[in-house]
């Protein structure tokens, strides 16, 4: 435990982001230790997908810093960012496999673009990664010929083909049946145990979150409510967290004047 403390993989400090004039994330502070599985949880519109976009370096924050593997991605040069990206893998919600290529070509794509390996080696590496996600023998198929769960697993294979140190999952169990979703959870745990990756998962599925998480961060309307272990989250007496855990609808008190002005648009 002592050793883990100094190896921080992800460190977000005072992150503020806007979408147009609207503030989406407000003062986010987050640290993820090396080899840890961090779940980012929250309801729709809580800003969890936005937080992931910024962690991936897909947006420029209004203020604050995001350090991945010790490097602040908010002011990295193109070349440094390019090098850092080789250490990051991302499994998008819909898989985001390139539809014009076969599964095998998709998995090989990072190798083809970033390395000078020969064709045979790349073939073998792609097959190895497809075996890891139980998709051996599917490399000749097109993404449109696969089921949703298989596409997600193929996307994982593509994400891990460069053996990244950081791995991000966006809603891994969205749109999957419970069995496939459980398999994906197993896969996430295995990746961490076997390859010692640091993993960040954005999800709103409670069961899968409790099963795989080392720590959970709960986001609500752009703020972090809590960032702690599964036990602590379960025992939290915060009303919003409890309503999220117990799936109760939020009963907010309506301010009559505000409500009226919203309706009339004045």
């Amino acid at each position, binding site marked *: 435990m002592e050793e883990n403390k100094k190896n921080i993989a992800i460190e977000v400090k005072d992150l503020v982001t806007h979408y147009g004039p609207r503030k989406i994330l407000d003062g986010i502070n987050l640290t993820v230790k090396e080899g840890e599985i961090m779940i980012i949880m929250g309801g729709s519109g809580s800003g969890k997908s936005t937080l992931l976009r910024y962690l*991936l*370096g*897909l947006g420029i924050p209004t203020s604050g810093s995001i350090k991945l593997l010790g490097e602040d991605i908010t002011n990295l040069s*193109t*070349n440094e*960012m*390019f090098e850092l*990206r*080789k250490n*990051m893998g*991302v499994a*998008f*919600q*819909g898989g*985001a*496999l*390139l*539809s*014009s290529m076969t599964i095998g070509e998709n998995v090989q*794509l*990072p190798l083809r*673009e*970033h390395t000078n390996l020969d064709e045979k080696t790349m073939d073998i590496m792609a097959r190895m990664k497809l075996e890891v996600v139980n998709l051996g023998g599917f490399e000749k198929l097109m993404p449109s010929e696969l089921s949703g769960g298989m596409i997600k697993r193929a*996307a994982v294979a*593509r994400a891990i083909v460069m053996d990244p140190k950081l791995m991000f999952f966006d809603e891994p169990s969205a749109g999957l049946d419970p069995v496939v979703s459980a398999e994906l959870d197993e896969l996430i745990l295995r990746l961490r145990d076997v390859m010692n990756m640091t993993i960040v998962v954005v999800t709103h599925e409670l069961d899968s979150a409790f099963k795989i998480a080392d720590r959970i961060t709960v986001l609500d309307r752009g703020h972090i409510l809590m960032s702690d272990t599964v036990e602590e989250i379960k025992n939290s007496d915060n009303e919003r967290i409890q309503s999220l855990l117990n799936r109760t609808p939020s009963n907010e008190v309506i301010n009559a004047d505000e409500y009226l002005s919203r309706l009339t648009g004045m």
Partner: protein
Amino acid sequence: MPEYIAHRFLNVVEKIGISTVKFIEAVGYYFALLIESVAWIIAGSFYKQPVRIPSIFSQMMTIGIAACPIVFILSFSIGVMLAIQMIYNLKTFGAESQVVVGVALSVTREFAPLITGILIAGRTGSALAAKLGTMQVNQEIDALRVMGINPIRYLVSPALLAMLIMVPALTFFSDIAGLLGGALYTGIEIGLSFSAYIDRTMAALMVGDVMQGLFKSLVFALIITLVGASSGFSVTGGAEGVGKATTRSVVLSISFIVIADMIFTYFLNR
């Protein structure tokens, strides 16, 4: 109600202002896209992200070679059509034999680049917009970016290079097809032999005439690629957005092509 009219007037002014700003923004985006694509073509290797030769060739196949039959058919028809119109017009002066010069100049200077440009805008520009738009919607563009693959380098630069090579090549092909159409009709209508037609065409045409057409086709290639790519990248809102972007790219590129054609023709003939 003067107040009401003033309000309406202000509304109109505001709308004009907004669309002007949007237009300037779009033009700025085209130039940024152009500069970035060219920069990747030139300097990609220094950033260890070269523009791959095979992808340029595969683009050239789909843009160029696959379009040959349709370019031939359209240009041939244009050639025949021009010959019909010119013989009819020149008859009034008893100068039917001048049709050769007329067809040669109009095909090479104007019709071949224009018809090729419009065809490629409808065929390749729309395909580019649809492809990039779908990729945007499916997060494939984001996936490329997080894999450290610059989407402009990977998707736009090869298309731009392929277009800059293939559109002029197709225009030259269209020149030949158009002249062939003219020759065929002239031969049937006023009995001019094929070899005489070719001789007279060669005598009438200067290198500059053909070059003018090819130069314009280069401009058209730029317009089609930049409009198609930027329409694709700007897609929001799912499948409907992709459809809108595709339509937008075709309408915009054809409009820009015709306007650019007018401007360049004016300056090239000063």
